[in-house]
């Protein structure tokens, strides 16, 4: 029997500390949906998604009600569409995006990821058409998210693609000008993109995975923040070291991951689908008390972005992974801490107060689990500068054998210091200045490829 104090601690975690399952994502392979014509292909895609995901949302809701733990998002990830639609032109890829959107709407999921491809080793004809289709695809649909993997540690960074994608980000923002450039928030550029991550906008159902799979993304920055506060409060008279706090994070991460594993497995079993991974990421929401920035502050910097912030993120990210790794049979590749600025009230405030700047965020991403995420930048920043921001972030991922990503929103018609709101979980933020904009043009014009690092030669 579980001890009363453990029961009370668990009750607090669920009731007061914003524990939730952030996303249950159904991965569906669409590789067998290719037909002779685009119309038949779209039909096959819609049919397959609807067939597998027909009871997905209601099952998540039933399990969520049984355990009384909210499942915030129900999502679908599909095979990177370039693999399914290779040979079709850009206009046809837009039709596929529409089919995906229709299917996602029919089964009532929040988002669908996988309008994607991997161009790390080179850009194929189909990749080029898919990339060309992204602005239309994301502005004419509601639920479809796109991602492109431009680099890996094994093959280097495809700078030709990075050049192209800087412009794609600009186009997306421009075409959704009336929503503050929101379409750019549905697009993310990766290095070392994991094939099984349940996190939007980069969710895909990679090659080498089962036909259908259930992955879970668990969050819980609020739970970790409260656990740390309690620990610091209880042991204030003792010499509490960072190693003690790391241990507290680890233990709490274990508990949080366990809830996700439990719910994910129940959903998978109810749908008779194999269970994939739990991704334990500390992903904030704009709600008060559900912030990664708050944890960074609790760990001892008065302003996020102050010296020490990077070390704190490193400690946090590692402790989260360690706790999660033991809690779950299979932990996803993105586990760790996210620092998406707009989605985290405390981080957004740090940008507003000019404590946190793009360069410091970049440093922090070299030790966090993903990258420059949900950062609003001035709409006037040129495409070449955005490509250069992408290149910097990709280089961090490539050299350090880790996933990095860029999701920046150049807000049309707004400058640094102005304010933008995207609504809901996407949050709001002051626009962060981009220093030295326009000064990387020659670098970007070289294009080509950044070769894989020496440590890619591992065999």
């Amino acid at each position, binding site marked *: 029997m579980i001890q009363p104090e453990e029961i*009370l601690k*668990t009750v607090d975690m669920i009731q007061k500390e914003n524990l939730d399952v952030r996303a249950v994502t159904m991965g569906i392979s669409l590789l067998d949906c290719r037909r002779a014509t685009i119309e038949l292909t779209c039909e096959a895609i819609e049919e397959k998604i609807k067939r597998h995901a027909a009871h997905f949302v209601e099952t998540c809701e039933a399990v969520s*009600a049984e355990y009384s733990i909210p499942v915030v998002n129900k999502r679908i990830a599909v095979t990177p569409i370039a693999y399914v639609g290779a040979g079709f032109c850009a206009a046809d890829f837009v039709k596929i995006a529409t089919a995906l959107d229709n299917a996602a709407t029919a089964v009532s999921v929040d988002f669908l990821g996988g309008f994607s491809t991997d161009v790390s080793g080179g850009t194929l004809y189909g990749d080029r058409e898919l990339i060309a289709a992204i602005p239309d695809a994301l502005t004419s649909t509601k639920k479809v998210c796109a991602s492109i993997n431009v680099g890996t540690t094994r093959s280097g960074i495809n700078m030709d693609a990075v050049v192209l994608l800087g412009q794609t980000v600009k186009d997306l923002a421009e075409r959704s000008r009336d929503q503050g450039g929101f379409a750019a928030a549905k697009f993310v550029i990766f290095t070392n993109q994991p094939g099984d991550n349940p996190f939007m906008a980069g969710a895909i159902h990679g090659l080498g995975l089962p036909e259908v799979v259930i992955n879970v993304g668990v969050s819980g920055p609020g739970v970790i923040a409260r656990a740390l506060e309690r620990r610091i409060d209880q042991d204030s008279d003792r010499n509490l070291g960072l190693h003690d706090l790391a241990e507290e994070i680890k233990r709490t991460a274990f508990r949080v991951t366990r809830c996700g594993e439990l719910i994910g497995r129940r959903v998978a079993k109810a749908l008779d689908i194999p269970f994939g991974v739990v991704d334990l990421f500390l992903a904030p929401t704009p709600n008060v008390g559900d912030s990664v920035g708050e944890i960074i502050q609790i760990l001892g910097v008065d302003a996020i972005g102050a010296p020490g912030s990077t070390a704190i993120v490193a400690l946090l990210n590692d402790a989260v992974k360690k706790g999660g790794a033991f809690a779950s049979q299979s932990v996803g590749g993105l586990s760790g801490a996210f620092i998406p600025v707009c989605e985290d009230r405390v981080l957004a405030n740090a940008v507003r107060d000019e404590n946190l700047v793009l360069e410091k965020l970049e440093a922090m991403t070299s030790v966090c689990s993903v990258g420059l995420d949900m950062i609003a930048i001035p709409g006037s920043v040129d495409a070449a500068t955005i490509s250069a921001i992408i290149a910097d972030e990709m280089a961090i991922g490539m050299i350090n054998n880790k996933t990095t990503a860029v999701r920046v929103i150049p807000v049309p018609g707004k400058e640094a210091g102005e304010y933008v709101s995207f609504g809901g979980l996407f949050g709001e933020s002051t626009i962060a200045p981009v220093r030295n904009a326009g000064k990387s043009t020659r670098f970007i014009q070289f294009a080509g490829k950044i070769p894989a690092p020496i440590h890619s030669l591992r065999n």
Partner: protein
Amino acid sequence: MPTLQEQFIISITSHDRVGIIYEVTRAIGSLGGNIADIRQSVLCGYFSMILLASFPPKTTRRSIEGKLAEVDSNSESAIETVVRKAENNVLSYNSSVPENAYVLTATGHDRIGFVATIALFCVQHNINIIDLSTTVSNGAYVMILIVDLNHIASICEMRRDLQKFTSENDITVVLQHYDIFRAVNEINLPIR
């Protein structure tokens, strides 16, 4: 054959001290009693134990009571015992928590009738209480119940009623599946 054995439920209460369990179980052993299951706890310094034991055929309630009376007479504190013959057909050896077990925590000001109020709700909804303990947390009185919801009509309806009940009685109640508590507190993941 175990069916030929006589089963008895024995409950013991006493002021807590060193040696009670030894003395009681030695007495049971001397009658050839084999203990099948046992629960023991100390409440505010008061020892309480309930056990199920099987005895050789023809062992009577009186003979067990007599043996335990000897333990009592040699004890510095009074040991009170209740012995009862158990009907074999009503015994359930499955002591594991049922599949539909939930943890209900009720927090409120300490007052007369607090436990009864919660228990009444359980009765009205056909909720069986498997385990109950109380504690004080942050100055409030907390009841922790492990309940079996296998016999309730509808969990959604019950949750709605619970919501109404808590606001009417100024009690904070949280009802959460037992699996969650196991998942976050034990090494093994409860997988059904």
